[in-house]
């Protein structure tokens, strides 16, 4: 899963304990806690999984880059499934 293929579909705001996502259509909110909050920050700034992984490793205390990369990929998939992010439409 490539983050640059996706775009955010929600409003978001940095909160003390994570990042708050709000569905623009339904108004439903969801608080992303850490380390998912850091992954969201990296996603919205178009970091690739390979850029995110070594940073997430330190933030989330993952054993290695692979574990952090797996976490980021799983998160992206979960956000896509929940409709927080959508695949970009080809021009």
């Amino acid at each position, binding site marked *: 899963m490539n983050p640059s293929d996706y775009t955010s579909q929600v409003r978001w705001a940095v909160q003390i304990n994570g990042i708050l996502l709000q569905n623009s259509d339904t108004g439903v909110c969801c608080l992303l806690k850490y380390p998912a909050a850091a992954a969201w920050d990296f996603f919205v700034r178009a970091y690739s999984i390979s850029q995110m992984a070594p*940073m997430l490793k330190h*933030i989330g205390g993952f054993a290695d880059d692979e574990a952090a990369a797996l976490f980021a990929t799983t998160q992206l998939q979960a956000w896509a499934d929940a409709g927080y992010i959508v695949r970009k439409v080809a021009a």
Partner: protein
Amino acid sequence: MKPPFFAIPVMDKWLIHCPLHEVTALINQQALEEFLGDRPTTSPEIAELNSVLREPPIHAPKPKSGEFDPQFLAIVTTRGCNINCVYCDFGGPTSAKVHMAPALAVEAIDWMADRLVKSQREEFFLHFFGGEPFISEELVEIVVHRTRAVCAERGIRPHFDVSTNGVFNEERARWIGDYFDSVVLSFDGPPEFQDRNRPGNAGRSTFAAVARTAERLSKTPIELCLRVCVTGESAPKMPEITRWMATTYRPAVINFEPLTENDLTARVQLPAADPYEFARRWIESKKIAEAYGVRLVYSATDSPTPRLSSCPVGSDTVVITPDGSVNGCYLQPNDWLQHKMDLNLGRISVGEGIRLNPSQVDHVRQMIVEKPRCAGCFCQWSCAGGCHVSNTYKGCSPQYVGFCLQTRLLTACSLLQELGQDQLVNDLLADRQAMEKLATHSWDPITFNQPAEPSARCE
């Protein structure tokens, strides 16, 4: 015990300043003599003043003791920098761009969080310093997110602030706006000063980049402080700079600090401001800043309560440097060693956390107590000697230097303004002789006949 009572000459009057008792008064020569007990008094005001000052003081600052108790964690991400300030005594232009290892920073964050939980604190203050912290982009992001993660887990509120040169792109400014609480942006004013003092590589202008950053940050919720290093060239323009900054960037704070002359400034013939002009222009600028709702500060006078140090030294500050040193000061070890000081508190290493050297901690805590240059000065409970390394190091001359003169003037003016004596401040600043008399007055402490022995009323 340092003296608690002071009398400072202000034109034909005396400013009585007793910071530990929170008492300040303006009296004439006759009243001073009555106040000191040198002649009998019939004045109920003088009798009351005497009586109040014989009470134990409200404040009694003492050097720290007991368990090491840091107020904030400072991370020097790198000593390297992306610009070439001509006066930089932090080694920015010449230091290698070596970044702190993320694992080391994580170790420091976790250590600090443990301390905060243990001491039941609810806030985690983290300060980024350099070099230029944002040339260590990845590290800053890791530190911010790791700290936020640890704080969220432990129910602590994180606060991030940074001292930066502002030479970075729009995306970085936006990110700072999202995650930081306050930014101290070094910005020396219009291009004639900014580019003279703070040029980029190969002498390129930094003005446009820093001005853009200031503008972008001013549109975010962070507390923006514009820090101006005032030189002999820019001092006359302080009021204009204040008005321009206040209207253009709407900062919360403008911080004017005078240039400290060093070998580097001598090389480029950059003069320090005349202390009398600095004080005069600072007061003028303060009025302008206030009119725009901006707070004007000068670090040596900016203390709500009496203190023994106006810098991190002696306050159990933890400054982590890229090589894993844990220091009590932001400056480089060479700067301390020059003055035979050791401000290293210990080391940090991955897997072992921070190991402090208790005797060094104690040594640094005690270092701030005795300051021969400050012995006769009424600012010893507020300025407290300024920078311990470059201004009031052991063996420095006991005479006041330019920094002392402007600090004495600004402190006195601030006290007079608190007393509603704005006209007297104007008169003082218009009279060079009176300014010199106040600024160079070598012994301010006073004692009463049969003085009460002060002891703390409360800590």
